[in-house]
């Protein structure tokens, strides 16, 4: 990683740590941005392999509903256990669905993911007795290592847990992308046939990436459920999946930070646009997106890469 990117990452983490003290009102928005950033990172992983999922919000919803059900039935009703449990449940779902879905490529992969996600959306909406239907489910405030806290104190802890997980999991995903398996994933995009002729199963490589990406989205869903305190079928709706793809592309898929940058950017523009013109926030958001897409084809993260490039060519960075 270039020094500039390391400095940026350190500054960003520092800013995230002091933000609640400097701007208390931003804490909720940033927690949601990080949660959606995890889901967008999952989408970005698949994009690296040339796979576009227009149904990944289903894993966000599975993570959120898994948290809601665990709280409802008092199973693993502690912050750490909820996050781990929901992530594992989503990973298993990703593994099961992925076994079938990763056999497909291009538009077929995208549309099949969309189809599965809409089936889930319909189930969440219609199974009223189980899921609360379109009313959704309330998520009570869980304990934190056995301590019962009020909602405000819990939200503070949750925020810092989310920032900690962002750093820890971000580093793990970066290591994965730098490993042979990560390069193999990128190679599926360019030459799957050569990969097979090197003795590598493209199906296995893709399934692993798909499962990781589902787990990331599930973790994000669990974070969102705990922050908002309520889950809705809309989490699985196709527009949410489109939003995740947009976030990943906007932030850039060249680095792990990209989807998080995209997510924070989108949430910030959204909030500001609503403040400035409540009736036209969609237009402002759209204009901002067009500007990024036209002028930064590698996303917002590409801006950092571009600045790091001249130093790289001089051999300053690794």
């Amino acid at each position: 990683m270039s020094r500039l990117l390391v400095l940026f990452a350190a500054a960003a983490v520092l800013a995230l740590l002091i933000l609640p003290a400097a701007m208390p009102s931003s804490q909720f928005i940033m927690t949601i941005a990080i949660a959606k950033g995890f889901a967008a990172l999952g989408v970005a992983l698949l994009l690296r392999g040339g796979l576009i999922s227009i149904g990944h919000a289903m894993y966000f919803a599975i993570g959120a509903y898994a948290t809601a059900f665990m709280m409802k039935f008092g199973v693993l009703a502690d912050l750490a256990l909820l996050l781990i449990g929901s992530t594992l449940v989503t990973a298993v779902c990703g593994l099961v669905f992925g076994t079938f879905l990763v056999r497909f490529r291009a538009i077929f992969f995208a549309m099949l993911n969309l189809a599965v996600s809409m089936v889930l959306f319909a189930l969440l909406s219609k199974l009223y007795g189980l899921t609360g239907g379109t009313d959704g489910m309330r998520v009570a405030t869980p304990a934190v290592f056995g301590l019962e806290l009020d909602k405000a104190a819990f939200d503070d802890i949750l925020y810092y847990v989310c920032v900690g997980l962002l750093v820890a999991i971000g580093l793990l995903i970066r290591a994965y992308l730098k490993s042979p398996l990560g390069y193999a994933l990128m190679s599926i995009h360019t030459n799957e046939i050569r990969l097979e002729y090197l003795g590598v199963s493209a199906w296995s490589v893709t399934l692993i990436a798909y499962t990781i990406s589902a787990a990331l989205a599930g973790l994000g869903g669990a974070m969102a459920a705990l922050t908002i305190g309520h889950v809705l079928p809309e989490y699985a709706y196709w527009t949410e999946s489109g939003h995740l793809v947009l976030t990943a592309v906007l932030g850039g898929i060249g680095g792990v930070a990209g989807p998080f940058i995209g997510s924070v950017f989108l949430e910030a523009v959204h909030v500001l646009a609503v403040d400035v013109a409540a009736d036209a926030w969609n237009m402002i958001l759209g204009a901002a997106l067009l500007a990024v897409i036209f002028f930064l084809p590698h996303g917002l993260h590409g801006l950092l890469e571009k600045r790091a490039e001249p130093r790289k060519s001089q051999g300053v960075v690794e």
Partner: protein
Amino acid sequence: MNKPVLRAEGLELSFSGVKAADNVNLEVREGEFLAIIGSNGSGKTTFLNMCTGYLRPESGKVYLGDAAITGMAPRRIARRGIARAFQIPQLFTDQTLLTNVMLAIASRRGIFQGLRRLDRTAYIDEAHELLALFSLEDHAETIAGTLPEGLRKLADITLALALNPRLLLLDEPTSGVSALERFTLMEKLMAALKARQMTALFVEHDMEIVTRYADRVVVWDAGRIIAEGDPKQVLRDPQVIERVVGAV
């Protein structure tokens, strides 16, 4: 006589009624450098495709050593020891040449290595050694897709060699390489094969290359083998001259 590394028995395959393989029986013996020649469309590449699992023969068997590999997936055949270089180079075009070769080395050692980096010293060193075989070291950091056709061809062969296979299949290794560089390439290839005691089979159209480097030649015509043996003798066969040499 050395024992066969690859054995094809009674291979049959046709496309829309046109025979691409018509009762093909062939052995590739350990340590030999076997050439396949034939006119365009005679079934040479189809034979390679059947040996590497890309195509499944309608009937017949392919053996690697004593193990039947007929109809296996290309990745399973590659893991058993058959590597292939393609007529049209197959590279990971958006990655550097060094990364291409390191990925091939990692594939040989097993792609599932946890979170260990691909660009570790051992892989970098081995990749540079392999690139040096064809004087590609200066292009190590070049994005593979931007290399000229001739260098891409060499890179493709390097990826196949990185697997350290029992048998190397080369589909027209000198096509796309300039006439001046063909013999240099072949000398380097032969040296690399001999140093690794590797068996190889190559499809070729250049009869001078075949005469100079092949231990044995097999002549293909309309999906059938019509002659095989010592290149100098086979290439003087009137039938071969009429149906193949004059046509390539």
